[in-house]
């Protein structure tokens, strides 16, 4: 993380570039280490980043919601961890069903084949000429009362201080009890596959195959840990799920799905901040949560 003195003015363009995840997860990891080593510096840097963003535009009604959410995110990071309450609000009327969020998530977390954190469910209703489609992005609901955690035999999955349900990959024995218990199908199991391995093509016929292979094996940075895919080491063999991109959030970046949503349908922020966009939107009368009747108290809200 930059010190406050070094903070350069964040122009709209390079902010968006950063938000889109192009800064790279490795940078985020370094930032996380820095955050742990010098929390005061980080705090000062948040202030500076907010000031820089507001210098460009200080009218919340005129800002791109991404800018507003980022300011709110940086503000939330200045509070003690347990005072934050991350939630997501997804406006189904704005979702165009492009699946960009799904792919952004796959890229950010380097998900192998068969593992998905945020699919977009597609449904079709009605009969011609009154036909309509609904797209429902489905991340982990980060249930306040999650059925998936008490069933874990080794406490490998639990709700962390920020209210996000996480998986400790080194503790997980891969029994998949949590997957069976989740009413939203939000967990998948990593069976150790890669996209490139065993591709039925002759050698050298795919340009950049080596790079692709290396990319697949290189580390992802979930939970702020660098884990490369080799042998049978975690997260292979583990249950995996959306974690609201905690590794990005902790260094002031919005979750990957939020930044790539072309319809600005996915909103993210701290519900404990009464002035945040998500606090405002989740209080609308047209808000619903999935399978509310199960008492899971999802932290993902849908505007319908």
């Amino acid at each position, binding site marked *: 993380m930059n010190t406050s003195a070094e903070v350069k003015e964040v122009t709209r363009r390079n902010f968006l570039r950063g938000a889109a995840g192009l800064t790279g997860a490795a940078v985020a990891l370094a930032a996380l280490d820095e955050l742990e080593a010098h929390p005061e510096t980080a705090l000062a840097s948040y202030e500076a980043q907010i000031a820089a963003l507001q210098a460009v535009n200080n009218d919340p009604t005129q800002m791109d919601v991404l800018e507003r959410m980022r300011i709110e995110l940086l503000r939330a990071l200045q509070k003690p961890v347990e005072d934050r309450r991350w939630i997501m609000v997804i406006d189904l009327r704005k979702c165009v069903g492009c699946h960009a969020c*799904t792919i952004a998530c796959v890229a950010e977390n380097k998900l192998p*084949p*068969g*593992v*998905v954190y945020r*699919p*977009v*469910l*597609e*449904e079709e209703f009605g009969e011609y000429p009154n036909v309509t489609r609904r797209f*429902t992005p*489905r991340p982990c609901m980060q249930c306040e009362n999650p*059925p998936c955690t*008490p*069933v*874990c*035999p*080794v*406490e490998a999955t639990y709700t962390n201080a920020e209210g996000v349900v996480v998986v400790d990959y080194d*503790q*997980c*024995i*891969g*029994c*998949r*009890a949590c*997957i*069976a*218990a*989740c*009413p*939203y*199908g939000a*967990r*998948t*199991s*990593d*069976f*150790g*596959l890669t996209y490139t391995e065993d591709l039925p093509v002759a050698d050298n016929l795919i340009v950049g195959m080596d790079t692709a292979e290396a990319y697949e094996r290189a580390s992802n940075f979930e939970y702020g840990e660098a884990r490369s895919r080799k042998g*049978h080491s*975690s997260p*292979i*063999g*583990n*249950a995996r799920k959306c974690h609201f991109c905690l590794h990005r959030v902790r260094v002031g970046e919005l979750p990957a799905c939020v930044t790539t949503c072309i319809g600005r349908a996915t909103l993210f922020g701290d519900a404990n901040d009464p002035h945040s966009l998500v606090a405002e939107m989740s209080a609308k009368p047209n808000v619903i949560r*999935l*399978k509310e009747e*199960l008492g899971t108290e999802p932290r993902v809200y849908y505007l319908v």
Partner: protein
Amino acid sequence: MTKKAIYGLSVLAVVLGLYGFYSRLFIGEREVNYGSFVTWGLWVAMYLFFAGVASGSYMVATLDYLFEIPLFKGVGKYALWGAMVTLPAALMSIGFDLGHMERIWKVYLNPNFSSLLAQMVWGYTIFGMVILLTLWMVFRSPEKPPLALKLLMVVGFIMAIFVSGGVGALLGVNASRLVWHVGLLPAQFPIFSAATGFALLLVILAFFGPEDDPRLGQQLRVLGITVIVMLIVKTYILWADFSMSLYSGVPQNVDAINEVLFGQYWWAFWIIQIILGTVLPVIVLAIPNLSRQRLWAGVMGLLVLVGFAAARANIVFPALTIPELEGLATAFSGPHLSFEYFPSLMEWSVTVGIMGLATLAFLIGLDRLPFFKKVQDLSHER
């Protein structure tokens, strides 16, 4: 002769299992067909089945060592040894199902006791020790069960009910899987387990019981009738469960039941579970002459066991083949993301191998363990 054939078959089964064992241990879980939607497949069903047989066999052993029923004097050892070989088969089945089986020690060192799975790992470990201790005590005093053995049998009997019910709860606590939740599986499973315990003893006595024991015909007959009663009770439970689910009409539940009755694998229910596993054995075992004959009794016992294995599978998979959310099945495609399931060759191979190992262990014990000799000597002396 029969024994030789069964020896041969079990060695063959182990050989067939080698491919699965190798694939699972050295390649991992790539070749399995269960996945992230049908999270639990054949191996979990077999875990439930073997664990049920183990606890059921222990229950049956009480006829000899706790209740001292003269007709069953001397046969408790067979039931106990049956429990002793099926329990590891259960643990192997579930162990292979773990993504990280090398971390199983964590369940002992950092258990989360609110998890049914942790409770079951501990429960079955303690239960395994109880079986071992019981065998040891039986070995020490083959003549008359001492008081300590009787007390142990009481403890073991109660444990057998709890652990076999517990695996039902393992599924049943998932409130969002209605078909597991409404079926009151923790109540059903101990009955299923006892039934398989009786069926296993029927098979064991029919195929390996002492040749010249004059009680054998009578034993087979009584076991046969008990199995009939158990099958009728089981069918009634099934009826109660299914009819209630269908009547109440909750879509997710109805879909799961329909999947069992008329889905892709309708034959597993109607042909294996109902016709071969229930109707045929009830008819044959009800005929006094046939039920006293070793071959008929043994084969019927086997069919009952196969029927119960199919019943376990019919409880595990169908609930998982119903998408949790509309549109989930088609939202993202990839390997292991399917709501359809049929075990892969490698999964079958592992299961066949485990069955072979358990049978082989059983036979070797029968031939080598001193107390089986004593049982046979005892029946000779009588």
